[in-house]
């Protein structure tokens, strides 16, 4: 199931790393984000001490509780989020909006890094939707398959129209 998930995401132009443990995942995310000046990070990322790790590397971190969130988010180059769940077929991650998990973290910055727990991976969308519908719905549940794309120019795929140009998935086991 993990193989199908990873293959599907890669076919949709995502980069995928892992599965790996918490320390490795934190190091991976910090390493990836450290090349950028301003990073937005949701509270639902399942990596303890991630924000501290980023700040120690000299990266400025914007969190949803920050009063300047709305006005500074447009300057963030990377958005880091967790995921409510993921499905292998078709391959996609699902992000639930919440006070610590704004919708725009995975939308406005050019790069979206999503940390996905392998335990949250389900085999198919049809199965997942039965469970999702039975639970409490968030104000917005956003399914993401890869970087923003369009086929509007002569039916040839072009990435990064409005949303992120790159989606990087870090699998956590």
């Amino acid at each position, binding site marked *: 199931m993990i193989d199908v998930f990873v293959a599907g995401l890669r076919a949709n132009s995502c980069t995928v790393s892992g599965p790996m443990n918490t320390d490795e995942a934190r190091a991976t995310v910090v390493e990836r984000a450290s090349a950028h000046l301003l990073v937005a990070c949701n509270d639902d990322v399942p990596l303890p001490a991630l924000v501290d790790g980023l700040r120690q590397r000299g990266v400025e971190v914007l969190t949803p509780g920050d009063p300047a969130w709305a006005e500074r988010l447009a300057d963030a180059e990377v958005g880091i989020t967790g995921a409510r769940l993921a499905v292998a077929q*078709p391959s996609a991650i699902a992000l639930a909006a919440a006070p610590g998990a704004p919708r725009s973290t995975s939308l406005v910055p050019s790069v979206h890094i999503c940390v996905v727990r392998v335990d949250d991976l389900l085999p198919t969308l049809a199965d997942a939707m039965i469970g999702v519908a039975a639970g409490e719905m968030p104000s917005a549940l956003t399914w993401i398959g890869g970087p923003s794309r369009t086929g509007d120019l002569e039916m040839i795929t*072009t990435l*990064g129209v409005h949303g992120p140009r790159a989606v990087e998935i870090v699998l956590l086991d």
Partner: protein
Amino acid sequence: MLQRALHNLDRRLRTAGESAAAHPDWKDRAAAIRRETLLDLDGWLDRLEHSLVARGVHVHRASTPADARRVVVELAQARGARTVVKSKSMATEEIDLGNALEDAGLTSVETDLGEYIVQLAGERPSHMITPAIHKTLPQIRDVLAKEAGTDLAVDREALTAWARDRLRGEFLRADIGITGVNFAAADTGTLVLVTNEGNGRFCTTLPRVHIAVMPVEKVIPRLADAGILLPLLTTHATGQALSNYVTMISGPRRAGEVDGPDELHVVFLDNRRRTLLGTRYEEMLACIRCGACLNVCPVYRNVSGHAYDSVYSGPMGKVLTPLLSGGTEGADLPYGSTLCHACSDACPVKIPLGDMILALRADVPDPHSGARRRRRIFWTVWARAWSTPSGYRLTTALGRVSRGRVPGLQAWTSTRELPRPARESFRDRWAKEHA
């Protein structure tokens, strides 16, 4: 151009067809879900309204396009809105909402890249999934460069990047985001939106107010049904196993959330749809707007979407346009069909489009019946004349003298060419050479 774009699309859809073949019963399940909805459409709509209201959503019912336009324009004016960003939606095209907003003094910006190009060019979409499918890359460059006021390269990446920057500004400035709805689940009160570019997400994330225009047949009984319908929609629309983004919205922003609209409005649009219930055309309301019937239609593939002169084109447009207008628009469309039934075979929810096109020829008066009668008279006279050698010789001699300029045929020859008659007939040449 259309041929090349459709060829690119064909390649994608073939791959998708192969993956869909792995679930042969999915079309049956989807068709069953859609028909279950239609059995009690009003009941599901009431349940949907109840669920939406419980989530703090404002529901408006509009029976005509004018009603729907008035609801949206009044909402915008009451909030002092100036700029509206729109995500691509056939329903808003159907009610011509963009122009209504402009007429009311608002700026309405289409944010789907293809739709934005079409809006800047002052045209209408020619395909429901890829609105600018009729334009080549150099043509698109010309449209965008004119708006930019600078030269832009004929390069997909560069043009996309320019549009990204330009539209990002519009999203940040907009007071209202307007979208359509792909499915609305009655049980949970959830709006499901399918997009690839992310413009739909922006429209439902940044502006303070989100208004969704929902044709009544978009309701589905259960959110879980989306698990079947979504992959079927996207594989048939673009060949993707799932669209890049699927947004499931259950109410406005909640306490403590830092983005999302404060207000969410849903406009149920009827526009004669409910009058189709119980008729032979009821199943047309099962349509999920994937565009599969357009892509396989031999007529659409040759004439492109603009030739239909209606919002909905292709086989589904031939059926829906006369039905939604009560026969006043598109009454001639059912005649522009080869009746090959490729559309019926392609439809993921098994709508018998070919049968409906044929039935509409009987049910909707043909606005061109006069022309058709004249054509019949012409062919009768022609057949009589060419049944005798003297009649044949006389008419062909006349044809040679007139060089194809036949009086009374201007209506036909203004857009078509008559074959040029030879200077000398075969009989004359034979007689001369064997004299």
